[in-house]
């Protein structure tokens, strides 16, 4: 990576997060440092409870860090901002709006109104192949389709970085594979900076340039592994020797953490 001139999009600087619980203080994150550059695809893996979602929420500006800070393009994060888009595991579509109007919501928040918003929304729906469902309500869609709408909506806000919180975690294996492939294709085209949380090691390797392994209690970065498999990647990449090698390495590290948590 050395020698490449790329913009630093996110700087996570010594972030610590402490929750006050009934049993005293619980350190969710401790001393987390991470730099995310433009066009990077980063996946975070770790056992549940390692604070990966907390980290994403802090980056999104939905939670405050107890100490330390997050900088987005040099500006300190103090709340949510449209330059940081979020895709949630539970889709978070507005059930009272049609698919098209859900996407238009993102555009309208940016001040794009009426016909213009409608046309742009259709363009984003085309990207996720849901033009036919533009006038349907979310309840009429499958889980995979809902998440595609949520991704289209996040894209419509045109953020600098997409924060994805286990976006495919609630989907069945087949749909998950399909959405991974679609996300890969999209990313290979536009190289939108992505910060993607998952507990699925295969998913992390197939998507990311860098996999961050987090350890639990307190949550911190255990190691960063460069995924040196060239793009374009597809599901067949999962059968290559290098993929399996990386999978073993990452999985054994995650498994260690899992055993730690169980203790």
């Amino acid at each position: 990576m050395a020698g490449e001139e790329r913009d630093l999009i996110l700087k996570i600087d010594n972030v610590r997060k402490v929750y006050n619980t009934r049993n005293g203080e619980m350190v969710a994150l401790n001393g987390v440092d991470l730099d995310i550059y433009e066009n990077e695809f980063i996946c975070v893996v770790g056992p549940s409870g390692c604070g990966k979602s907390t980290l994403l929420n802090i980056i999104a500006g939905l939670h405050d860090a107890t100490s330390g800070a997050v900088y987005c393009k040099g500006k300190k994060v103090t709340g949510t901002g449209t330059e940081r888009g979020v895709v949630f595991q539970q889709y978070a579509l507005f059930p009272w709006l049609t698919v098209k109007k859900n996407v238009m919501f993102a555009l309208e928040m940016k001040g794009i109104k009426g016909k213009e918003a409608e046309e742009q929304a259709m363009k984003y729906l085309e990207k996720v192949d849901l033009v036919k469902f533009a006038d349907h309500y979310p309840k009429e869609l499958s889980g995979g389709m809902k998440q595609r709408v949520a991704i289209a909506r996040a894209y419509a806000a045109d953020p600098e970085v997409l924060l994805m919180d286990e976006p495919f975690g609630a989907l069945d294996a087949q749909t998950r594979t399909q959405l991974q492939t679609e996300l890969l294709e999209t990313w290979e085209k536009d190289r939108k900076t992505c910060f993607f949380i998952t507990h699925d090691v295969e998913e992390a390797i197939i998507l990311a340039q860098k996999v961050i392994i987090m350890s639990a209690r307190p949550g911190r970065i255990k190691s960063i592994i460069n995924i040196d498999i060239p793009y374009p990647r597809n599901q067949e990449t999962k059968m290559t020797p290098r993929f399996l090698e990386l999978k073993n390495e990452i999985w054994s590290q995650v498994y260690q953490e899992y055993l730690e948590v169980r203790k």
Partner: protein
Amino acid sequence: MDNEKKTSLASRIPPKVWLLISFAAAIVAWYILSILPATSRGFPNIIVTTQGLLTMIQRGVFWADLGSSLISVFAGYALGFVIALPVAIIMAWYMPVRNILEPWIQFIRNIPPLAYVPLIVICAGVGRRPQIIVITIACFLIMCVTIYQGVINVDETLIKAARVLGATDRDIFVRVIAPATLPFILTAVRLGASVALTTLIAAESTGAMAGLGMRIRSLNNTFESAPMLAYVIIIGIIGITMETVIKYLERKLTGWQEKREI
């Protein structure tokens, strides 16, 4: 095989026809009630009951009773709603208000209105005013509790999703909380309608000059069961009409919901 045939026959009958069958069954049941010695005095048959209603129209009291009751129900119901909506929202938003109000709303809600009607009469006198006050109180309580539940149960993720898309507090209120609460508001409107009608009878015990509930009581003094039964049925018709209209509104306005509420 036989069983299967029967189900398929039953499922081939359209809902409208079922309604007719159900109606016919009710007429038969009514007829049986009207000839059984134990129940015949309270349940005159359909012809006698209809005659009873016609007598009330001839005496010139029916339309006055119906009008009076409808005015009380709708006035109390509308007032109850107008007060409940902002109070519920304020309760959901400001913890101190919630903590002070909620226990008392629950407390009063569990007292049958009939019990406190005399107290209201002492304060507000007789006539239309105490009737509207009693219905307003009852409607307010049930609608406030229901709408409040709706506002506090708005899915947190939807608010987060709106916020990361750049929504301001105002956007979140108007474009997320309001539509997300709408199903609860309509449920409140439906529950309120039935409470308004139930409370009407209690409300009209306050020395009303006219009214369906008041008339039933006064007919009781002369054992005129035919017009009484007719009035009871009229109250039922008003109830089912209100519910049908509100259910239609619910379907129109909140058809987007994942699952229907009871």
